[in-house]
C-alpha cells in the first residue's frame, strides 16, 4: 500500500526538496506551510510519517507535534523533526513534545530516506 508522508515547512525550497525526494521514493506526499495548515490538511487522512520543521509561523513545530499526538489516529505515528546540529536543546524540546526522531540539516536525500526507514514500521 502506498504510504503517505506529511511534510511541514514554511520554506518552500526545503519543503519541495523533501517532497521531491519522497515522491521519488514512492510516497504520497502532503505538503503544509505551518502547523495549523498541516492540522487542517490531515484531518480524516491516513498519515504514515510526519516530517516537520520547528521554526514556523502561525503554529511552530512543537505545538504541532503536541497536537498530532493528541489525535487518536496519530498517537503513535512516527514524527521526524528537521533540526540542525547546533540546536541540541531543540531536539530535547521536540522529543518532549512527542517527536520520534530528527533529521539534522543539511542532509542528502539518502540520509532522509534512511532516517525515515528507521522509524517507519
Amino acid at each position, binding site marked *: 500500500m502506498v504510504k503517505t508522508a506529511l511534510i511541514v515547512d514554511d*520554506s518552500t525550497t526545503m519543503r519541495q*526538496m523533501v517532497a521531491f525526494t519522497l515522491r521519488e521514493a514512492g510516497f504520497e506526499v502532503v505538503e503544509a506551510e505551518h502547523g495549523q495548515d498541516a492540522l487542517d490538511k490531515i484531518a480524516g487522512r491516513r498519515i504514515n510519517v510526519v516530517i516537520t520543521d520547528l521554526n514556523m509561523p502561525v503554529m511552530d513545530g512543537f505545538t504541532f507535534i503536541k497536537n498530532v*499526538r493528541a489525535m487518536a489516529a496519530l498517537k*503513535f505515528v512516527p514524527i521526524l523533526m528537521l533540526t*540542525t546540529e547546533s540546536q541540541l536543546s531543540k531536539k530535547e524540546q521536540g*522529543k518532549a513534545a512527542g*517527536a520520534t526522531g530528527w533529521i539534522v540539516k*543539511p542532509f*542528502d536525500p539518502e540520509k532522509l530516506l534512511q532516517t525515515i526507514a528507521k522509524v517507519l514500521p
Partner: protein
Amino acid sequence: MKIDVSHFLDTFLQESAEHLSTIESGLLKLNTAPGDSELLNGIFRAAHSIKGGAGAFGLTHVVKLTHALESLLDLMRNGEAKATPESTALMLQAADFLKVLTASRDAECPAGMDETIAALEALAAHTTQSPAKAVSGAPANSSAPPKKAPEADYRVIFAPEQDLFASGCNPLLLLRNLAQVATVLSTKLEAKNLPALDRLDTSCCHLAWEVTVRTANPVSDLREVFEFVEDQARVEITPLVELPVAVSAGPVRVETAAVPDKAARGESSIRVATEKIDKVIDLVGEMVIAQAMTSELVEKFSADNHDRLKECVSTLERCIRELHERTMSVRMLPVGTIFSRFQRLVHDLAQKTGKKIALVTAGEDTEVDRGVLEMLGDPLTHLIRNSADHGVETPAERVALGKCETGTIALSASNLGGNILVEIEDDGGGLDLERIREKAIAKGLISASSEISDDQIRLLIFEPGFSTRNEVSDISGRGVGMDVVRRNVAALNGSINVFSQQGQGTTVRILLPLTLAIMDGLIVRVSTHRFVLPLTSIIETIAIREDQVINIAGKGEAVRVRDEAIPFLRLQQMFHLEKVSREGDEEDLPQLAVVVERGSLKAALLVDELLGQQQLVVKNLEKNFRRIEGTLGATILGDGSAGLILDVGTLIESLSKADRTSKEIRPISLVA
C-alpha cells in the same frame, strides 16, 4: 521549479567551519594518540557531515576532498591504517583546502588540491594494497565503506521508559534496525515490570530487552540505532571481549571470558550449593544438643553417668569431624579453574619457541582446597614452561628422533587417598642426568668424588640457582623456577618428584594434601618435647636395636629394615635436645623409629615415645614467631601445650644431601 538552496548553503558553510575546527583540533590530538578510536570517529563524523551537505549543494570539490579524507580516516578507525605524522600532515593540508572552499559561496578551487587528493588516495590504497577507490561525486554509499574489522560481540541492554510509545517510537523497529547492523546471537525479554492484565496500560512500554549481537561494525553503529531514544531509555552497549588475563582461546569467546571473571570473583566470595550449607547447619544443630547434654552431665557429674558422658563426648567428636569435612568441602574448587589458563600459556610458548606443542589436560573436575589451588598456579606455570622450553624438542629434532612432530604436555589431576596428585608429563628429551651432575659439580653443589643415586641427581634440579642451560632464554632457564616450585609445594605440605627417561620425556609428580588447615598427625615425644608428624607421610613405626644402625662413611647413619637401608635421623640430636634416660635404660633395649616418606625417599626418625594420634589445626609459625627449619608450623595439643609439626620433606632432603653438616638444623628453644 528550480530549487533555491541558498538559505541552506549559508547554514552549511557555517556548519562546515565548525566541523573543520573539529577536524583540525582532532588531527592535532591524533599525533599524541594515534589509535584513539573516539577521536578518529569524531574526525570522521565531521568530515562525513561536510561531505553529506556538500553533496546536497552540489559542491563537487568539497565532496571529492572530504571523500578522500574520509576513506583514509575510515581505514584508521578500523585499525587498518595507522596515523603517522606524515598522514596527519596530509590530512591537515586537506582541511586547509576545505577551509578555503567553504569560506564563501563562490570560492575558487585552490591550486594543488588535486595533488592532495591523489596523495590521500595513494596513502589509503597503499594501506589496503588495493587500487584507490574511485572518487565519485555522489555521496551515496560512501557512508558504508567495506569494513574488514574483526567481529566483536556486544551485549545491548535496551530498557525504555514507560512513555516510549508516546513519541511514536517502536521497540520492535529498533530491534529490527539493530539486526541490520549486527547479527543477533540471542535476545532476552525482560517482562518483570509487566503489570497484571487489569492494570495494564497498553500505551505504556513495560518491557526491556537484552540482546547479544556480533558485528564487525564499530560500536557507534549500534549506538546510532538507539539515537532517537537515548533520552527515553536506558541503553547499555557493553563489549563482550576477552579480558587481558591470558585464558585459553576457545571457540566460544563468551565462555572463555567468563573463566577469569569467575576466578577473580572467587577471591572474595564463593558459590556454595545450598545443600552443603544446609548439612553444615544440621550438624551445628546436633552439636548444640550434644554440647547441652554434655554440660548438664558435667554439672551433675557422678560416677554413674560416666558412660553417658563418654557417649556425649563421642557424639560431639563425630559431629566436629563431620563438620570439618563439610566445611572443607565448601572451600573446594575444581582444578580445572587453573588448568584452563595453561592452554594459552602453552600456545604462546609454542609460538615463541617455534615448537609444536599440544597441552592435554585430564581430571579437571578434581576438587581441591581453594588455598592449595591458589598456590598451585605458580609452580605449575614454571613446570609447564620448563617442559615447553627445555623438554619438548623442535619439530625438526623430533622428526629426526622418529617422534611425532607435535610434542605433548599432559597435565592431569587425580585423587590419591587423602591427597591430590598433579602430574605434568612431557614427551620431550628428558633430563640429562650426566649434564645435571656436571653442572652440580661446577656449581659446587656436590663434590666431584661423591657418588649419588640417579634419584638424588634428579633432585638437584630443585636446588636454588641450578640450571643446565648455558644461555638464559626469556621463557625459562634462569634457574629460579625449580627451587621456587619446590618451596611452594613444600609450603603446601606436599611433595614433588621427578621421573625421567632420557629421550622419552619427563614426568613431574606433585602430591598435595586436599586441605591445608587441618591434618591428622601422630604425636611423638623426643626428649622433653612433643612433635607432630603428619599422618599422611608415615609408613610405619618400628622398633629398632642399636645394632641395626649402620654407619655409612660421609653419609651419616642408616638403619636396615627388611633388607633396605633407610637413612636414620636422631631427632633428639638434630634439634639439640637433652637426652632423657629412660627407666632401666639398657643399651640393648629396642628403640622406636617412625619411618616416613616423601616421594620415593624414606627416612627413619628416632623418637622416644609415641603419644597418640590427633586431628590438628595447623598454626603458622612464621606469622606468630619465626620460621623454624624443618617444621611446617605448630599446633595446640590436647593438653593445651604447643607442639611443632615436623616437615618430613625437609628432613628427608637434609638426609639425602651429600654434605649434611652444612644443612644441619639449628638448635631451637620452644616455650609452650
